[in-house]
């Protein structure tokens, strides 16, 4: 499992590295749950649905946990007979929004826990989760989720703006933390890069070595 943490002002570029998602969706390679659309269907849709609860049923308040969301994930990723795809990846963008929609931190963490069981242990896949967060945040619920996620992640990408403020050539810094052992923090490998975001690409470079400087 992997977590990415970004403070509010930073963009999410992890999931958008020049791959055509539309084509993937058409091939059946990508299942896309569009939260905004799904929420609108839930809120403004007719009372009687096909019998299947919406993945975002928790927003309506009729249930308090994220089981429907988990069921959707599990059904979408479970291999079928005609399936030829090799690995399984679950991308979540972004988990912090679930808190804003009324989910309790414990329910969010339970959801991720169940996903980990199915995707990582059972299907031998990976999960990539995006959360927002910053050091001076006062959102205690969010901090709880971020801390817990980090404890259970093998790889953490911590993205933030430069401490010195805005710079045209260096948009921010990314800290890559590889957890070699989830039990202790002693053997973590930490790498720090800086980055600049372009129109369809992101370039990474070592600290102080941006193209503008060289």
């Amino acid at each position, binding site marked *: 499992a992997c977590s990415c943490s970004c403070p*509010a*002002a930073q*963009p999410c*570029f992890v999931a*958008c590295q020049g791959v055509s998602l539309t084509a993937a969706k058409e091939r059946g390679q990508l299942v896309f749950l569009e939260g*905004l*659309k799904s*929420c*609108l269907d*839930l*809120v*403004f849709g007719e009372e009687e649905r096909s019998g299947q609860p919406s993945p975002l049923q928790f*927003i*309506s*308040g009729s249930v308090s946990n994220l089981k429907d969301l988990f069921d959707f994930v599990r059904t979408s990723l479970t291999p079928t007979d005609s399936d030829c795809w090799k690995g399984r990846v679950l991308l979540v963008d972004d988990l*912090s*929004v679930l*808190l*804003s*929609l*009324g989910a309790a931190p414990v329910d969010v963490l339970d959801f991720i826990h169940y996903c980990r069981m199915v995707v990582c242990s059972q299907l031998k896949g990976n999960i990539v989760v995006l959360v*927002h967060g910053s050091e001076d*945040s*006062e*959102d*205690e*619920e*969010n901090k709880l989720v971020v801390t817990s996620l980090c404890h259970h992640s093998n790889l953490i990408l911590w993205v933030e703006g430069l401490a010195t403020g*805005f710079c*045209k050539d260096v948009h921010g810094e990314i800290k890559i933390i590889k957890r070699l052992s989830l039990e202790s923090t002693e053997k973590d490998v930490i790498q720090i890069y800086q980055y600049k*975001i*372009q*129109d*369809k*690409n*992101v370039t990474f470079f070592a600290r102080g070595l941006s193209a503008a400087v060289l």
Partner: protein
Amino acid sequence: LVSTEEDKYGVYSSLLLKYFLAEGVVCGHDLFVASAQDPPANILKELPAPLLDDNFITERVEATAAKSEDCQDSMQIAWRYQNAPKVETSPTTSIKFGHYYDVSQKMSPELLQSIKWHSFFLPDEMPLEPKLKMCNMNCGYARLLQSIQSVIYQEGFDGSHPQKKQKNILRIGIQSLGSLLWDDDICSTNTPEDIHSITKFLYVLRGLLRKSLSACIITMPSHLIENKAIMERVTNLSDVVVGLESFIGSERETNPLYKDYHGLLHVHQIPRLNSLICDVSDTKDLAFRLKRKQFTVEVREAVLFHYLEPKRWS
């Protein structure tokens, strides 16, 4: 979705809301005005008058025919997901965006009547039926969402009724969201009963904006919200967040560094829609002032340099 953090007395944020709506009138867009305090009709009566040539009102020229004015130092705030344009020295090469207004004059009723507007005034919606409880959300917000959704659907802003008239844009302005008048207690206590109503509302609202031809500006009295986590979440749920800090009643009112201005404009978030990158303008230090006829936003750095120059004359 543009979220504006109100200045302490709501003077300037209400002015920005009126500019947004006025621009909609001049561009021929439909308007939707929601408020829990001032009746929408009154808000519309107070829109600033546009500075246009005489032919406009009779001909209804398209939005791109903006007039250039004599204010080289001013920048305009971008209301949709475009960015604050850089200051241009030669008017012919600059990108014409938006129009100019005279805040000392009110918009003529004829111009206002040339567009279609919808309104939502919370006191008129009372008593709210309990069965309208949607998603455990505050009744007022739920009712407002239903109202917006029904206008979007009936007027075809979401692509339904394609055989109808030509495509147009819906400009939505919501005043003082989150205030006590919307029956929300996030502004009156540090431990509100329901902190999720407003964020759920914003999420659903953004969903509606994404699937229709509409843009929305909301103002929020964030200075009254003690629970800072709420504003952090609001920021994450909005596309653009600007904060207005007025100098009224603060020590900055008499500070010589700020003497030409009435307040500061803080840009907390800029949008990244449909692309990885956002166009961050070079200038971050923005201040605003309200002159007799005009509300301008300027780069404050110029002022700073002025004061750093050594005085050569006694």
